[in-house]
């Protein structure tokens, strides 16, 4: 996996090329292919993607729509199966696991944050936060729980139902839900897609904090350059392949790279 894309060096952005060292990664994909349909109607959403997501880092996956960024995330999270290649979460090879195995993996090692918040309306904020733990039948670590609640700033909203919370608050509940079980990796799918910019910034700041403060590993799919700029590392996907990567990105750098990708696509 080498990057062939050209691009001007920008201050504050470090470019790294060459094979990523994927050992010890929180999750990694090895030559992953995802093909839909067969024969004439065959469409490859991922074509030989290999990537390692480092522990304790905040990684953003970006790319134009149809680039396969969501598919990659779904495969890494054990929500979708791959056609070829291998996916590891921690040291566990998840390719070939059955529904039960994948479910348990998601339960114990993975956290999710969705664009649509996806809270249960019948449960209070607190119950929603503790839901993954109750599903797994685990007792919450009180101290950690308190830390999470204080970090997301929801202490006075715990008894509220989702319908009584604003969008930003709901997404913070969702973040807390993902954090509270201390998963190996949290996958966030366009977490700010349904939020106004202020609430979005809050959530993004919060996610970055949890990486910095608690060493949480987060992988976020987004098409918002500003959102991606909160990450430690941005991986760019186009046409089912990883085409570029930025470390410590700024929003401008991300935007430029995206523009380049578009130009490339137009030329191709």
């Amino acid at each position: 996996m080498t990057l062939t894309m050209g691009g001007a060096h920008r201050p504050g952005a470090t470019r790294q090329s060459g094979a990523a060292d994927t050992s010890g990664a929180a999750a990694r994909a090895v030559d992953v292919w995802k093909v839909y349909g067969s024969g004439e109607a065959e469409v490859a959403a991922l074509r030989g993607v290999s990537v390692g997501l480092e522990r304790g880092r905040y990684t953003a996956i970006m790319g134009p729509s149809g680039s396969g960024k969501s598919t990659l995330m779904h495969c890494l999270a054990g929500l979708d199966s791959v056609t070829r290649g291998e996916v590891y979460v921690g040291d566990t090879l998840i390719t070939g696991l059955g529904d039960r195995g994948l479910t348990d993996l998601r339960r114990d090692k993975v956290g999710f944050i969705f664009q649509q918040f996806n809270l249960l309306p019948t449960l209070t904020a607190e119950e929603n936060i503790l839901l993954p733990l109750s599903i797994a039948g685990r007792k919450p670590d009180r101290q950690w729980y308190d830390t999470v609640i204080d970090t997301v700033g929801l202490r006075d909203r715990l008894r509220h139902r989702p319908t009584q919370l604003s969008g930003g608050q709901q997404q913070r509940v969702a973040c807390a839900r993902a954090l509270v079980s201390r998963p190996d990796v949290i996958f966030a799918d366009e977490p700010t897609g349904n939020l106004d910019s202020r609430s979005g910034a809050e959530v993004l700041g919060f996610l970055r904090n949890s990486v910095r403060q608690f060493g949480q590993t987060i992988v976020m799919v987004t098409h918002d350059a500003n959102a991606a700029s909160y990450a430690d590392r941005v991986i760019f996907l186009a046409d089912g392949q990883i085409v570029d990567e930025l470390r410590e990105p700024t929003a401008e750098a991300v935007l430029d790279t995206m523009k380049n990708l578009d130009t490339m696509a137009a030329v191709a």
Partner: protein
Amino acid sequence: MLRATFKSLLSRKLRLLLSGLAVVLAVMFVSGAFILSDTLGRTFDSLFTNAYDYTDIQVQAKPKVDGGGDGGAVPANIQSTVVGKVAAVPGVAKATGTVAAEGARVVGRNGKVVGGAGGAPRFGINWTGEDQLISLREGRGPQASGEVALNAGLAKIGNFKVGEQVGVLTLEPKKTFTVVGIFGYAGGRDSIGGEQTVAFTEPVAQQLMLGATGVYNVIDVKVADKRDLTKVRDALRAEVGPSYQVDTGADLAKKQSDQIKKALSFVTYILLGFAAVALLVGVFLILNTFSIIVAQRTQELALLRAMGASRRQMIGSVLLEASLIGVVSWLVGLGLGVGIGSGGAFALAKLTGIDDVAGVGVPPAAWIVSFVVGVGVTILAALLPAFQASRVPPVAAMRQAGTADRPLTKLTAAGGVLAAGGGGALAFGLSGKAHDNTIWWVVGGVFVTFIAVALLTPLLGRPVVSVLGRLFAWSVAGKLGRRNSARNPRRTAITAAAMMISIALVTGISTIFTSVSSSVSKIVDQQVQADLIISGQQTSAIPPAIDPVALARVRALSTVDAVAGQAYGAAMIGGKSQFVAAFDDQAAAARILKLKPKIGRVDRLGAGEMVVDEATAKGRGWTIGDQVTIQLPRGEPRQLRVVGTYPSGPGAGGILLSWPDATAGFRTSTAVQAYVKLRPGAVTTAAKGEVDRILADSPEVNVATREEWLGNQTQIFDIVLTIVQVLLGVAMLIAVLGIVNTLVLSVLERTRELGMLRAIGLRRGQVMRMVTVESVVISLFGSLLGIAVGAGLGAAVVRALKDKGITELSLPWGLMVGYVVAGAFVGVVAAIIPAIRAARLDVLKAIAYE
């Protein structure tokens, strides 16, 4: 608009299928009931038309006592002189005096009365030789008093051969005869409608079937010219006078057929009852389905409105959908109705011993009523949802599809008002201020309260569901399921209401019958002091008789203290039919049945005397010393003097005659039931064995211990209860459909939630458990509410019947527990399909689901 309707119909196949099924069931039962009675009717019409094909006119004496429901009319005898008078009427070619009475029971090889089709008559006739109808198959007709001929049907069932000895029970105890011939009927029939016939010589037939020689009960008349049939009939009527019945063969065929049809009409009523329950529950199901559809389609409907569809068009669209479902369900139901109607008719006919059942036909009533039921009710149930649809504002098209639950204020207010009204009516009825109208106030109150509870179900649902759900809250899946069931109180309530209604209905009926049953057995238990009871199974028009010789031997047993043999029959008093009884030992009866005099004496009765219970005395206006004219089935009217009264009670009641009067006037002069009191220290089972041996030659009667007999007294209630349980089965079937319906929708609505839960680690099994808990909570809620409402309202009715002797209130605890279990079971069954659907959900698609 039409196209949009069709499209939306097609896209909701499963749900529509489910609600359609309720209509299908109702239509099936309704049309089945009509088709059954129509088919049976035509079957019996043709049967009796055949049987009376060769009968021109029959003259019969009108019974002295009309049955009035107490065991049928006892045929009156015709003196032989009347035969001559009839023969002399112009146009009459031939008049033959015949004996043809029901009640000749042949004893089979096993010592029991020969079985056969239920309810088929057992005739005893005089042999008048072969004719157009009757022809010998084997042997000859009876010539000596010890000889009989049997019809081929009877010979086949009992496997009797010519030359064999058979025992026959008639008005007299068992007598033995030699079979000398076997005969059949025109058209090669062995039997007409399963009937069994024994042909005696004339004097024997007269003595055994009519109780006297030289008399007949039917004069068979052949007319010289068939065209004069009605003219001759009218001339005969004029000649013999009003105390005789003169009918043509056609008249008789119709009368007999009508009688049987009436006797079998209970089957029709049961089917109609099932239809009513299916409908009642079905209305909720349809209402629910359409409410759901409308709620789900809010955006779509709003869009249509925004594009300019009028309110009327919206209503029309929903109603059109309803009528399409109605019509399809009606046709399917009608098809099934033809199946159960003709199948049921066939089974019943077989049971009655008829082989040639009339062809299947759908009478106009079946078409019309089932159409009204199927299509009408569907449309009616869809009306409310249709108005809901029309109220969707166009702006809803722009909003999120969240279907917020409407407040329950109006519903609760309406329910509250009705509950107050119903409760008030109940209270007034039970306070005793309504006097004779008590039962109407109570029944009215019950009905109104029932509706009130149905309306209040959503309100009740919240607390009850939350408490019930705690039972399942030990796992995450259970907790989630519980929350889900409390989520949409209106929908949960409507779904549970179907369950509630069916279970309330059966619990109520069961409560009433259990109470009646235990009241009866308590009273009888208190009153009847006998240790053994000898009684029989009535198999023909003649009641089962205890051979007096056998009874005397029972009396003579060293272990027996006293025996009271009882005979009963119908009598005419003051133009009204009345049940009367008599004991062969009045003193023993007074002791064993605890008859205590209120006025006068009740422990001694001589000829010409009678005693009566207080209520009857009050009703008839009799006092001690009054002379009462009583017409018994046999003989002339008698003048009897009232010598005593005793307290009324449902155990023993009514008028008691002296034994001499009874034996002279009743159809049989023997006891039909006997109460045996044993000496202190006697072993009941040993005594029972002894009595059993003595009764070996009385095949129709059995001896039972007091406990066994008490059990038999309440058997009829058990049968009713069984039918009620079947009714419940039908209702539950529909309730299941309702729950499935609601759950499928819930799963659909919560696709994204389910996806999230699966994504964060909920296993498939847990998903299934979650849906199942929701289902079980709903159905348990319905069952418990139903049991509470049913038991409460049933108890109210029982309380109102206190004056009628129903003093005991006993709740059917066993059944009620059974209903809760059944409710839970229904919940589990209903959850199967929705749970599988939920578990199979593709997580990725579910998350992306909008």
